């Protein structure tokens, strides 16, 4: 436990000292801000953060791997992984520490978006329920995407490759309905359950890019469902375990 905290603490310090985190946060605010404005500036628009959520869900496909791409790739490139793995640390402690650091940074980023809600409260009468569940969904969703990004980062020393692989996996999961619907109905049924949350229709005024069939739809609507929570938890845990396995496999080559 102490070791997890040590690793997390070091990574958070590195994030704060490097420009990457600020660039990611700035572009996140810019993109989600655009979606938020687009969703509330219509004549009969509803006072909700749906637009922001849609923008976030879509953009995190690229931003989460950008946040995590350094974490394990850099260790491999610098060779410092050899020092970590010859210290009395378990692979799981290294991976969890890094994950917690990335998760903390993304939570901090979400905290900055709270002003969307404040604007809604000043100029309208928003329904607090969906805002709360929206943020809850976003937190779970970001954990899943960061875990996929961290997995990609464990694969090799090249950060760019990590970014592309991570985004690739997330894009596939996002548009899996697109693939599934072209296959036999039975396969489609199974694959559709894996859908991450976003969809192609990012400029659609109704959905704002949150797929109806995906696991984010209910959160955006104000519903907390056990299935959706389980899904995001599972993705997070499966990819964290795969990451740990990759690090451990180095010992058995």
């Amino acid at each position, binding site marked *: 436990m102490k070791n997890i905290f040590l*690793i997390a603490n070091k990574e958070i310090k590195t994030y704060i000292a490097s420009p990457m985190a600020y660039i990611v946060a700035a572009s996140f605010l810019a993109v989600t801000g655009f979606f938020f404005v687009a969703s509330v500036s219509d004549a009969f628009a509803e006072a909700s953060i749906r637009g922001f959520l849609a923008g976030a869900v879509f953009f995190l496909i690229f931003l989460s791997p950008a946040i995590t791409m350094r974490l394990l790739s850099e260790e491999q490139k610098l*060779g410092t992984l*050899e020092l970590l793995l*010859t210290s009395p640390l378990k692979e799981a402690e290294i991976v969890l520490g890094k994950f917690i650091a990335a998760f903390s940074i993304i939570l901090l980023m979400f905290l900055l978006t709270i002003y969307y809600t404040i604007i809604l409260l000043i100029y309208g009468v928003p329904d607090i329920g969906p805002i709360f569940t929206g943020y809850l969904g976003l937190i779970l969703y970001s954990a899943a995407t960061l875990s996929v990004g961290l997995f990609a980062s464990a694969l090799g020393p090249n950060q760019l490759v990590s970014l592309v692989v991570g985004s690739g996996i997330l894009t596939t999961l996002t548009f899996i309905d697109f693939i599934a619907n072209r296959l036999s109905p039975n396969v489609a049924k199974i694959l559709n359950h894996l859908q991450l949350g976003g969809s192609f229709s990012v400029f659609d005024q109704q959905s704002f890019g949150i797929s109806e069939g995906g696991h984010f739809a209910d959160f955006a609507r104000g519903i907390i469902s056990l299935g959706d929570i389980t899904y995001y938890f599972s993705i997070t845990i499966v990819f964290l375990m795969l990451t740990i396995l990759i690090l451990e496999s180095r010992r058995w080559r």
Partner: protein
Amino acid sequence: MINVKNLSKYYGDYPAVINISFELEKGDIVGLLGPNGAGKTTTMRVLTGFTPPTEGDVTIGGYDIIKDSLEIRKLIGYLPESVPLYLDMEVSDYLEFMGKIRGMSDSKIRKRLPEVIETIGLGEYRNVLVGKLSKGYRQRTGIAQAILHEPKILILDEPTIGIDPVQVIETRGLIKELGGNHTLILSSHILPEVSMICKRVLVIHEGKIVADDKPSVLSEKLKTSEQIELTIRSKNINEILKELRNFNFIIDARENLVNQITNKNDETINLIVEVKPENNAQEIIAKSVIEKGWGLVRLNSVPMTLEEIFMQVTTDEKPK
């Protein structure tokens, strides 16, 4: 302390280390010597628990390298060949982090860190970013992280590679000082370094240990020839060479061209005579030179350097 028995390590089909065995006692200072790709780094990586052995048993301090890897890692301070450092951290922050992940308490770090920074000579640079340090100071930072937690065993992989000559000498001195408190394993392909620092040398070639002894004994043992420098006051070099070549223990006799120019005026001839060992070569040569009536100015036995021994044990042409 360290017990390696029939260790082999294969990367796929490629054998990096083949069936090596050795034992180290507490306080031993051992050099792993061998050309690039001989298996030095692989051996060290097995000892540090970074890579598991394919075959064989390794125990360190009574712990098994596979079953008790975490315990063994607590005993070891390790500097990998590439000197891995976090370039975006300050020296003292980096060392503090390394100390912490090795399980040092905050109070222990506070006490130990200034000591180590002092010993290693990093005082001026404690608040400098690691990325801005010169290669030599990065090397020092790397050594500092290896000794910070006072490990029983210190493993340094090519600690003087890629730094300038002055820093090499300083680093060697530093390592020699450290030797007293640790069981030290050092790898190198620079031979004088090993003979200077280490009390025992393991010569590794193509994954096998080809020699294991003290540096001085090693040079005795592996001698297949000996060189004698001979200076004679005479003009007739051909007569001398002909005479010397008559002895069956002499492998070769030739003029020492290096010294000849400087001594040109005093009518002396400098020769290098290569002889087989285990003969009283010097005595016989001296006797015959005097009998012939030539003036014997100097007769000097040249010990073989580690380089030459190294070439002999690792050159494939050598008959086994």
